[in-house]
């Protein structure tokens, strides 16, 4: 028998681990169950998005944006095409504007459903995950009848969308929304108000306001910390200024403001707000019109640069595009909201137990495709 080492142990969580939401590796130092230091190691899903963009034409980049945040591909398309349209000063038809908002909000619901479901998995609840996937599935069905794809859509094009809404889409959407509102009650019964769930998520991994701002955390994670900041409201893009909806913020209902439960709750509430937006959009949408009307012959923005940001389900998704007037961009930089959220992890999760670290990671709702790009 040699000396018994009682010092800290280094543990690698991932890249193959059920709860890292992709291929993330967390290098942690543990003293028993207590985690004293966390170093996220990223890059396992790096696919040279930004370098690829330098050699592709503007239209060809759209499918690449899909693959960044593959959970919310519509929202990624949306930000990119809006940026290019702003550079080229294209006015898209009214119907296209509404279709885009409907799709983006549907995708936001689908993305949040996945976030909440996998968060439930991290806490150990299996059933809510499948309940949520049941509804997510129906949204994917709607996307499928529209553009044929279920995950990576390449749906929004510069100046329009790839396909018009199919016959029956509006009715199917209304039907889904009605049932979805009923189903959210089920989620709250089985997960949100479950005593064990609250014990596990309330007061855990509190992200204070100032820390959130320092790290540049955005989206539901920021709103969970009690800051009312939503680009759809504060810097309305597209036609978001035409809709009435609220921006839910974390209030510390079950614990303190900015804990995991608040982040969870903000997402749950945001789904209801998205339902409101979709309903208004479906009501107001022009019933006919050519969605290909404003498609430019050649996508060739004038020389210059633009930074355009939209509210993706994960937060401020920004595109910085430099054009030198050719068929493809000189540089495309994507500002990833999940990246900033992950960067705050070591700050808020140090000192918690191993189980909590994974819950906190789950509550930040990161997508590795977007972090590594």
């Amino acid at each position, binding site marked *: 028998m040699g000396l018994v080492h009682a010092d800290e*142990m280094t*543990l690698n969580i991932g890249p193959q*681990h*059920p*709860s890292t939401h992709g291929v993330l590796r967390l290098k942690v130092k543990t003293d*028993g*169950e207590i985690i004293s230091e966390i170093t996220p190691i990223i890059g396992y899903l790096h696919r040279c998005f930004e370098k690829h963009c330098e050699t592709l034409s503007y239209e060809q980049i759209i499918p690449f944006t899909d693959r960044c945040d593959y959970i919310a591909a519509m929202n990624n398309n949306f930000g990119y095409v809006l940026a290019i349209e702003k550079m080229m000063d294209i006015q898209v038809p009214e119907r296209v504007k509404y279709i885009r908002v409907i799709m983006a909000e549907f995708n936001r619901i689908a993305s949040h459903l996945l976030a909440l479901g996998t968060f*439930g*998995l*991290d*806490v*150990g*609840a*299996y*059933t809510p995950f*499948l*309940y949520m996937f*049941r509804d997510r599935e129906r949204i994917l069905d709607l996307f499928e009848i529209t553009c044929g794809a279920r995950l990576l859509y390449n749906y929004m094009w510069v100046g329009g969308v790839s396909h018009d809404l199919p016959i029956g889409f509006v009715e199917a959407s209304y039907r889904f929304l009605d049932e979805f509102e009923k189903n959210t009650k089920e989620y709250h019964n*089985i*997960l949100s108000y*479950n005593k*064990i*769930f609250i*014990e*596990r998520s309330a007061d855990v991994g509190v992200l204070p306001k100032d820390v959130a701002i320092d790290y540049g955390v955005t989206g539901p994670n920021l709103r969970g910390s009690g800051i009312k900041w939503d680009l759809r409201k504060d810097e309305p893009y597209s036609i978001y200024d035409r809709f009435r909806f609220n921006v839910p913020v974390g209030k510390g209902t079950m614990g303190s403001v900015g804990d995991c439960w608040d982040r969870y709750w903000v997402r749950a509430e945001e789904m209801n707000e998205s339902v409101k937006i979709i309903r208004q959009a479906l009501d107001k949408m022009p019933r006919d019109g050519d969605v290909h009307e404003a498609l430019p012959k050649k996508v060739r923005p004038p020389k210059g640069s633009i930074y355009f940001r939209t509210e993706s389900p994960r937060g401020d998704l920004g595109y910085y595009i430099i054009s030198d007037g050719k068929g493809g961009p000189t540089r495309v930089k994507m500002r990833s909201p999940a990246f900033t959220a992950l960067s705050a992890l070591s700050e808020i999760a140090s000192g918690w*137990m*191993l*189980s*909590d670290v*994974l819950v906190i990671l789950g509550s930040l709702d990161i997508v590795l495709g977007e972090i590594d790009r």
Partner: protein
Amino acid sequence: MTIDNIIIWFQSWLPANFSIISLYLVAVLIAAIAIFAIMAVNALVAVYAERKISAFMQDRIGPMGQGPGLHAGKWGLLQTVADTIKLILKEDIIPRAADRKLFIIAPFVIFLGAFIALAAMPWGPNLIAADMNIGIFYILAVSSFGVIGIILAAWASDNKWSLFGGMRSAAQIISYEIPAALSLVAVILLGSTLSMQGIIESQAGTVWGFLPNWNIFNNPFSFFAFFIYFIAGVAEVNRTPFDIPEAESELVAGFHTEYSGMRWAFFFLSEYGNMLVVAGITVVAFLGGWQSPIEGVMQGAWWGLFWFLTKMTGVIMIMIWFRWTFPRLRVDQLMSVAWKVLLPIALFNLFGVAIWTLLVG
């Protein structure tokens, strides 16, 4: 049918000078095969039931293979059979860094805990392998055997996740054994016997005119003792919400991360065997064992078996229901539930039952 019965039956037609030791060994072997068969059948049925029930709870259909061959049969009935064949055929992997001997022994140690505990399980009025006068004490003692296997497996795997799982499991099982044992002591007080059959027989008759005189209904203290035992029992078999030793989303698979094939199947078998033990003790100690719920109706040897299995199935169903409903507790919360909630209540309960037996019973 006890081991003694089997020996007497053999002696009735074998020459009188036949060695009693070899007779005893044969009788024990028969009982052991019967218990192993029970465990195996239980695992087959319970796994299928759990998959179907969880599917029903989750808005899925579960295993639904159709047709002959190695498909899962109609309604997926052959799913567990197919799984078993798959597990047998799988490559047996022992990590190079593992402690080979301990790694090989560990699954059997865990299995042994559940296996020998079932020896004292009364399946019917005279259907028990070994009718000991200290039956419940014996079961409590040997069922904690499993934790040694878990720690062995965790240590021998030489994997940090396994080690986490093993340490958690040791802390958990030892903590929860105390409230479990205390609530069973309450039952022992009520029946004033340690024998499994004796405890069941003490629960004959009715209470308050219409309810069967089972310990759960006998008095308010034993009513609470039932819940304490059941919660602690669920914790002892490492099932949700107390499944932190294997906590999939945290520890990958906990103490059996490195195991595969048949070795892993033994963990699985003993998990379901342990469920059987806990459900069996719950039924014996609180739900009247093989007694019929209505006095004098449907009683007898085979009805006894029927009632025992029915009640056991009900208890296992509740465990399955728990598993697919609840999230998982954190390790420190788990400990505080055991030491700060269950233990004081169990102690108070024991005191209450003692007073009750003194004054009323």
